[in-house]
């Protein structure tokens, strides 16, 4: 049907709004789903017999206005930003790394377990750098199996990365209950604690640890790499059109392995920020489950490493403030999951309406949509 192809390209040519229109369109499509999700969330809260106004007010109070609310939100943003950076690298390459929680947790546990002994043996600064790198390495290693299965067997990585998360959570627990257990602590198994004064330094005059700086730098670097370098272009080509990547002579298998590893590394860094900056230890069954909630933000920002920052800021406020709001409303703090699910749904619908009007670009890269076309084995 060459007629269809011709009309398609004509449609593309016709569908170019002005610069201002495009900006407004982007804004509506990015902010719209968030607003709609908050409204739908309010309806659910009301149905549960809670006052949505009070609940959202508590979120703002807890995440922004209350004493350390803003600082806590910024602290929470550090790991989320690093995870977002890690996701952008793979999503651009048409790869779904949904094994974030496993990579994060395992990196966190190993860092927590090694932190105290390493810090005793080495100068504090050097130990922190090494621990940070160790976290990155662990995160990268945990992507190896899904990356290999995808690169060499074409096995769908959505499924395998999710599986590796379930395994990772249990392996992390085994570490905590086994080699890293600190028997002097309470009866809930946990690792030894890195003393507060040996953790990441705080920004002057605040309680905000240096992780946020690392995270912002990482995002700028990722943005530069994705937009200005040959490596970034290779990932973009792989993401836009996997078959073209083969045709252009890109080593697709290596690109898949490398982008997966970089993604795992950045997610490992996120764990380092959280453990070395906030907790200093890990307790059995601890799982902040940051993973899937960052995914929609990355799409809302259209895989742009700079544009994702405000969305992560919003999520951090919702997350910190949500704890307070949930406590006051006597609810579990899983309201955030509902909100994120709703954001995803409304995002998909907004995109559909946008596509109907033939405006602007899609949330997903062309290739990402087709990622499932790949079958196991050729």
């Amino acid at each position, binding site marked *: *049907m*060459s*007629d*269809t*192809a*011709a*009309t398609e*390209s*004509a*449609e*593309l*040519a*016709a*569908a170019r709004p002005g610069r201002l229109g495009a900006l407004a369109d982007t804004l509506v499509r990015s902010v719209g789903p968030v607003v709609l999700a908050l409204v739908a969330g309010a309806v659910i809260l009301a149905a549960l017999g809670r006052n949505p106004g009070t609940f959202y007010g508590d979120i703002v109070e807890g995440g922004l206005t209350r004493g350390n609310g803003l600082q806590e939100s910024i602290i929470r943003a550090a790991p989320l930003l690093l995870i977002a950076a890690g996701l952008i690298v793979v999503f651009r390459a048409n790869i779904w790394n949904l094994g974030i929680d496993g990579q994060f947790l395992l990196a966190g546990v190993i860092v927590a377990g090694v932190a105290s002994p390493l810090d005793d043996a080495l100068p504090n600064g050097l130990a922190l750098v090494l621990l940070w790198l160790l976290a990155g390495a662990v995160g990268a290693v945990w992507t190896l199996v899904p990356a290999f299965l995808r690169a060499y067997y074409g096995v769908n990585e959505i499924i395998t990365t999710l599986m590796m998360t379930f395994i990772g959570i249990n392996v992390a627990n085994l570490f905590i209950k086994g080699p890293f257990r600190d028997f002097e602590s309470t009866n809930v198994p946990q690792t030894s604690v890195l003393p507060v004064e040996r953790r990441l330094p705080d920004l002057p005059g605040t309680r905000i640890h240096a992780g946020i700086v690392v995270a912002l730098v990482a995002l700028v670097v990722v943005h530069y790499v994705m937009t*200005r*370098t*040959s*490596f970034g*272009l*290779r990932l*973009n*080509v792989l993401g*836009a*059109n996997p*078959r*073209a990547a*083969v*045709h*252009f*002579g*890109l*080593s697709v298998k290596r690109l898949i392995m490398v982008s997966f590893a970089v993604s795992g590394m950045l997610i490992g860094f996120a764990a380092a920020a959280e453990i070395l900056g906030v907790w200093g230890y890990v307790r059995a069954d601890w799982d902040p489950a940051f993973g899937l909630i960052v995914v929609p933000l990355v799409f809302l920002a259209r895989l742009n490493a700079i544009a994702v920052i405000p969305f992560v800021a919003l999520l951090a406020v919702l997350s910190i403030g949500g704890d307070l709001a949930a406590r006051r409303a006597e609810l579990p703090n899983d309201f955030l999951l509902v909100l994120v699910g709703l954001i995803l749904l409304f995002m998909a619908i907004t995109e559909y309406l946008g596509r109907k009007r*033939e405006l602007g*670009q899609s949330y997903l890269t*062309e290739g990402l949509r087709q990622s499932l076309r790949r*079958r196991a*084995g*050729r």
Partner: protein
Amino acid sequence: MSESAASTSTGNAGEAAAKRPAVQLLGITKAFPGVVANSDVTLVALEGEVHCLLGENGAGKSTLMNILSGMLEPDSGDILVGGAPVEIDSPRKALQLGIGMVYQHSTLIPTLTVLENLMLGATGLVLDVRGARARLAELAGMLGVQVDPDAVTGTLALGQQQQLEIIKALWRGSKVLILDEPTSMLTPQGVAELAAVLVRLKAHGLAVIFITHKLHEAVEMGDRVSILKQGRLVGTIEPGELRAASPEELQARIVRIMFGEATQEIADVAELERSVEGHRPRRELPSELAIELLHVSAAGDRGQVGIHDISLPVRHGEIMGIAGVDGNGQRELAEAVAGQRPLAAGEIRLDGRTISTLSVARRERLGLRYVTDDRLGEGTVSRLSVALNLVLKRIGEAPFWRRGVIQKGAIDAQASELVARFDVRTPSTETRLGTLSGGNIQKVLLARELSFEPRVVVYNKPTYGLDVRTTRAVRARIREQAERGVTALVISTDLEELVDLCDRIAVLSRGRLAGIVANEPGAARRVGELMVGRTVEG
């Protein structure tokens, strides 16, 4: 299924009997954003008659027929079936009205058996296998063909698959049969068999609408020819005229209708049409081999044939054609040469040096290039700019990248030069590639592959889907490169194109090399015989 017997019982609506209109399209208009695909088109198909719909790619033929078969709905206009106005809002409705369509792209499901494909869409809870067998035997008898009901469809030859498509279109007693470019996948022998089937269908009183972009086919197959141009009906040749005039006169007349009096284009078309008969003058070629395939085998994708034991020596500056019905290993051969598909056995030599294990990128550096037929699917990245698309095979290399960082100036300079040299019509080098026309995208591909001193170029269906003018430009480019000593492997399913271009023509059949024919008078017939597996003596 009350109509099921109708098609066979209508009987011989012979020449003498007044032919009644089976279906009438009146004033059909259909617009897509930015394009009017059909504008006020009126078309009548009579019972017992083959009505050819002729036009270039993009003239709106497929859109018109998709409207008739319920895949698209018209913006305005009326459709009459058997004289009564109808609204066709789905393929199911079209089938109920007795309109069957054989699409250009197969609608058979290769993983199902013949019988399962035919039973698709049947009513009732449980599959009626016995009834289906009987119906298949009945229709196969009517068409004069043989089909194994339990064969897995993907394993059938393409000619058989098309017969199956026709059976499928007639399955529920259709009285109107639409054939969209039915000969594009067939061997010359297959075309002859199709013509015989059409005669039998006419004898049973069916109305056949035959879509084609080939002039001689329209003249040979049609009882009536309608010509579409840019979505409008620009002329009709009635049966009386068709019988009275000679084929040459008719073709000349159709060319005038299609292109007006614009002499240049008439010359182009005349040349393309004439090449059926002509052949390329023999050229003196050096004896050294540019590229040599030695017993090359490679696996195919799931359900596709691979290539087996192919040995092919090609000399410097030679244009070697690769003929064969689509899907007989052409793509696999091209990919094996380009390095996109690993060899299972054998060796490939470039200038006497083995390159069998080299990567795509290494082969590209050595001057081995591949102009793919899948221009949007693998040849380009449609959301990147024209400029970037021109350097996508050199990512990371100087002068376009330094220390891994992009050098926009160098890329833009390269793009401006290539766009000018290859006459790419684009608003700017920053334009998204996906917004260009098919012909210009092909020029971008050629520009990229022919830059940086090519030595051997594999062209896969280089003119497929292009308009007459671009087709001519592309063929001229291939010839010009060959004159400079660049070796070409031209894969095409269009035998006329190969006869026009090549020094020798190799024939692929089911993944094997059936033979190599020198391009001399009678080459087309010998290639056609090899394509269906008959061996040629000598």
